[in-house]
């Protein structure tokens, strides 16, 4: 496995009497798309701000390629903050070029990069428009272009998909995948769990400032509950009452969905079903990231 490119090591931050981040630790490897999920106020934005150095942590350190992030290294991170913001009265291409130059490009490089990204996002004809003249969705595209324009070595994006139409979501997902494939570690937060599941190599679930689960979706599934559909048409209503570690989720006619605690052998459930009569179906159900999320958050919040 590759060495971690970006390490978030036990960072902590509290505001007055609220603990925002509490010893949070994770890492993102080169070429990896990392999905950062959690409820509102769980600490995602604070973590990203600390990573970008716009907020100082009370404790902990962020490392890049094994050494603590310096200001110069931070300048190479592409950032899309939760609070969107660009100059409303500045022309779109001029604005992107300005940000490119601030990140160390020459004037010509910055202009070319700005026009390239505008072209990519289908905004080539709006390059001389003031930002405020664009629709909110298009402003969001410009915001992403602002994070990408200088060819960053790391991408940190806070809710990049919020407010985008399906076409724009596809374009943005394609861009993020492409950057990751080019070797750039990409972290983004999102509440669209299906999208995260589909797109990300690894997922981190954060709750109350702590990382409560982190890994590939399959790894998260392996550690959590499993579900089985069983169809036993002739069974009495309470046939499953005596099976340990098994909980009925819902009933659909003669079909029943069970949730098994971690480590419970599903064959015990099947035996119990067979004991009541013929079993028409016994089906393994992969929990979605949404299911895993609710389970993990439920445990952490308990």
């Amino acid at each position, binding site marked *: 496995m590759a060495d971690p490119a970006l390490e978030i090591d036990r960072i902590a931050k509290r505001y007055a009497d609220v603990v925002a981040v509490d010893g949070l630790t994770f890492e993102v490897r080169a070429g990896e798309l990392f999905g950062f999920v959690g409820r509102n106020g769980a600490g995602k934005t604070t973590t990203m701000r600390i990573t970008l150095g716009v907020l100082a942590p009370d404790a902990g350190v962020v490392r890049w390629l094994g050494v603590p992030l310096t200001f110069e290294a931070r300048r190479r991170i592409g*950032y899309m903050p939760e609070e*969107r*913001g660009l100059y409303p009265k500045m022309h779109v291409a001029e604005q992107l070029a300005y940000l490119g130059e601030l990140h160390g490009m020459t004037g010509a490089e910055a202009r070319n990069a700005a026009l390239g990204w505008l072209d990519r996002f289908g905004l080539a004809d709006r390059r001389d428009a003031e930002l405020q003249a664009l629709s909110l969705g298009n402003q969001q595209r410009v915001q992403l272009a602002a994070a990408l324009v200088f060819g960053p070595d790391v991408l940190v994006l806070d809710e990049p998909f919020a407010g985008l139409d399906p076409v724009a979501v596809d374009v943005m997902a394609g861009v993020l995948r492409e950057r990751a494939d080019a070797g750039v570690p990409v972290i983004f937060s999102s509440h669209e769990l299906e999208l995260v599941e589909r797109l990300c190599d690894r997922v981190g679930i954060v709750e109350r400032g702590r990382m409560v689960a982190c890994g590939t979706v399959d790894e998260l599934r392996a550690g959590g509950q499993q579900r089985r559909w069983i169809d036993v048409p002739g069974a009495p209503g309470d046939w499953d009452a005596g099976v340990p570690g098994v909980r009925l989720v819902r009933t659909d006619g003669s079909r029943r969905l069970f949730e098994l605690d971690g480590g419970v052998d599903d064959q015990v459930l099947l035996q119990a079903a067979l004991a009541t009569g013929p079993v028409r179906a016994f089906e393994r159900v992969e929990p979605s990231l949404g299911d895993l999320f609710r389970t993990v958050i439920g445990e952490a919040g308990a």
Partner: protein
Amino acid sequence: MNARSFGLGGARHLPTIVLVARREVRMRLRSRVFVGGTIVMTVLVVVGIVAASLLAGRTTPVRIGFSGGSQALERSFTATAAALGANVTVSDIADITAGEAQVTAGTLDVLVTGSATAPTAVAKAAIPSNVESALSLAAEAARLSDAGLSPAVVTSAMALVPVRLLQPPNPRNTESVFASLALGILLWIALGQYGNMVAQGVVEEKATRIMEILLATIRPSRLLAGKVLGIGLVGLLQLTIVGAAALFAVQVTSVAAIPALGVASILGDILWFLLGFLLYATAYSAVASLVSRQEEVQSAVAPISILQIAGYLLMYVTLANPTSPLVIVCSMLPPFAPILMAVRIAASDVPSWQVGLAVAFIVASIGGLTWLAGRMYSNAALHLGTRVRFMDAFRG
């Protein structure tokens, strides 16, 4: 993936302060406020100078033409007229009839005919008394020379009586007061306008939330320095345009005799603008960094605005009584010096130690305020939403 790409060297990369300043200049020059403001200020200044030249019409030189033998008097007449305080221009007139026609038409004020020892002055309706005296004295000297006295004896015999005034009148006159007032108002407007522009610019980045992106790539102190530099350059450009128009108008309208409108004075005023701008820009940026919305800017900068209004009122006190101790002390205090010193210098003579002290105080204040503003701005830059308290921003 390696650390190579973190290198940021290369001569073609402009320093971030320059980039920020360049953006400010571009955006401001593009705005209607700048274009309109420059036009309005230029028109006001030129109209003011033309009005001053009309008011100062009586300083227009008296045009005197000499014909025939009287032309020998031109040199001694000019010297004597200058000694008597008469402003004259002298020309040769070949033909007496044509000369009289010029006097009648008003293109010549006085025609001198006859010989050097017996000249006759021809005027339309009246002749200024000092011109008449100078002409009489010049003719008298010519007659004494004609009688055989040496030039040296004539000069000493004709010497004017020296006058010693125990209480000389103030050199100020109406035009000078008028010009000083106009100048003070212009400086006051420019300082207020550009100070507020800095305040608005500081809040702009918090209000539009671009601050978070900017601070991920640029240090707050450089962002602030670039902003103040850029807006200052725009202000300087505007004042230079207005100043150049003023100088042009001065040359064309012959009001250069008014001390407040001389070249040195106008350059000095631009210097006072720079000092005042740096002082007020740093002060404005410090307080503006405490708020996050444009609506809150006015209340945040109120303490500074009150100081500026006090300076405006003191300007009238200065014009009415330039030697009062209150005016002398206030004109050396940094918040008032840029306007009061400029007005005092325009209106009267100011001891150089007072000017030096005022400059020293204001430069020291700019240094201290820059430190304070940089600290407050850095600490408050990412504090969005509620207003930051002064001490919190100071402590960080």
